[in-house]
């Protein structure tokens, strides 16, 4: 496992907790499966949620998301991809 991947894996519970808190979701953070889609049939998030999560990320980790950052759709495709993006931005 590369260092970046292991950092991202270590962040999964923290980012799950962040999503649940940012969106007031009625579920336990551990119920968010790392590879399940965050949109549509997974957690069912939409663009409003993405902005709410982005705001919490900017406050907690000190960086702003941009639409031209890599592939924006990919960043929010699952808990694992989001944690990986945060890990790379805060360490980079």
């Amino acid at each position, binding site marked *: 496992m590369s260092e970046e991947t292991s950092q991202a894996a270590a962040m999964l519970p923290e980012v799950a907790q962040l999503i649940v808190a940012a969106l007031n979701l*009625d579920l*336990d953070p551990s119920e968010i499966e790392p590879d399940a889609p965050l*949109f*549509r*049939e997974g957690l*069912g998030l*939409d*663009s*409003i949620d993405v*902005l*709410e999560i*982005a*705001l919490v990320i*900017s406050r907690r980790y000190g960086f*702003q*998301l*941009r*639409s031209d950052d890599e592939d924006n*759709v990919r960043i929010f495709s699952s808990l694992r991809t989001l944690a990986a993006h945060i890990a790379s931005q805060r360490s980079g």
Partner: protein
Amino acid sequence: MSHVPLLAHASLDEIFAYQPSGPVTVRSFLAAAATLAERLPAGRRFLNLCRDRYRFTVGLAAGLLDGRSSLLPTSQLPATLRQIQRQCPTIFCLCDSPFDGPFDSLDLPRFDFPDLPIVDPEEIDGIPDIPSELVAITVYTSGSTGLPVAHDKSWGSLVRNARAEASRLGLLAGPRHSIVGTVPAQHMFGFESTVLLAMHGNSPFWSGKPFYPQDVADALQAVPPPRMLVTTPFHLGIVLAAEVELPTVNRLLSATAPLSSQLAAAAESRLAAPVDEIYGCTETGQVASRRLLVDPAWLPLDGVCLQREAHAIVASGGHIEVPVALADEIELLPDGRFMLLGRNADVINVAGKRSSLAYLDHQLTAIPGVVDGAFFQPDEASPESITRLCAFAVAPQLSERQLLAQLRQRVDAVFLPRPLWLVDSLPRNRIGKLPRAQMQVLYAAHAAHETHQAMRP
């Protein structure tokens, strides 16, 4: 037949819009529209799904040159697109992105915005006239019967609306403002306050639609001052909260839901710029404006008049072609201004998207296996925090997950219930109605139960 020019610009060499590659002149825009007009497939109406504001406007203009209408769906839900296809069988989609978001253009014929090697801009010798009666766009609202309702807008009335707005905001005289909009061109407010203001309001727009706060800052930075930001209360709240460094913004325009005085005050103090709001709806176009920190009452646009008729407040005059009964609760003031008191209980507004409880209930109960069902809107905490809908369904053979999958095909994501509760029956009264008080009791019981569950060790 009377005519109105496609654009109000005095010179072909004025700047019409800004793209990442640089400014676009009126001449180049007209050349692109003329080229596209020659290439569009047959059919009098098309769905203009272009995400880029400039390409959307080239598509609109190409249609107008050829007597065609752009259809602006508020959502690209499969159920909505199929309904539109039933109403206009020769429909095609003008698209500019291989990825159309969570919903694609289905099996509708699709025409991809071409790379335009273009009619030579030097051949353009003037701004064309468009018949004022031509239906320029058709916009949709969610009807109470569960079918989208089409509203046709003539080119003449759209231009009158844009000029009334630009005149109210003081954009016609003085320096040209560069517009950055976070709202899509397909949304009525975005259409009027970015696309039409560039065409008839002396204000070139930025071609993109910035999303994250940093995107908004970057887009503003990419256009010359003076700048006007066109956005919604929700997006404005997020941009201010993110505390990104913003270049000078000279005006701010907000619509889709009223601003709170706290947010208006925070925005004016942070940006050192006036914050104006527009009130309107799809049926009327823009009705009135206000600057909340100066006066909480709304002043109708020039020529527009509100009157009480029977049980409704009706807007007419100016650019409004047919008098329209407004869906909000309104108090008329003696001098013609008015106060917005609240929404009609059936009207739903989530983050600026509108629907009605009747429409959403219809979509829920139309799902095979649903015996009964109803949406419920809990009381709002504040205008900037988004209060989601919840729903109750009686569907003994279906799981919550199956129901949500079905609803996702029929209802815009912002209206999806959070949560959806399966129940044995709904508290209908003797005449089959669901009184809000009874729904409130049902909601409180389920919400309390969830809290209790969540608190268990």
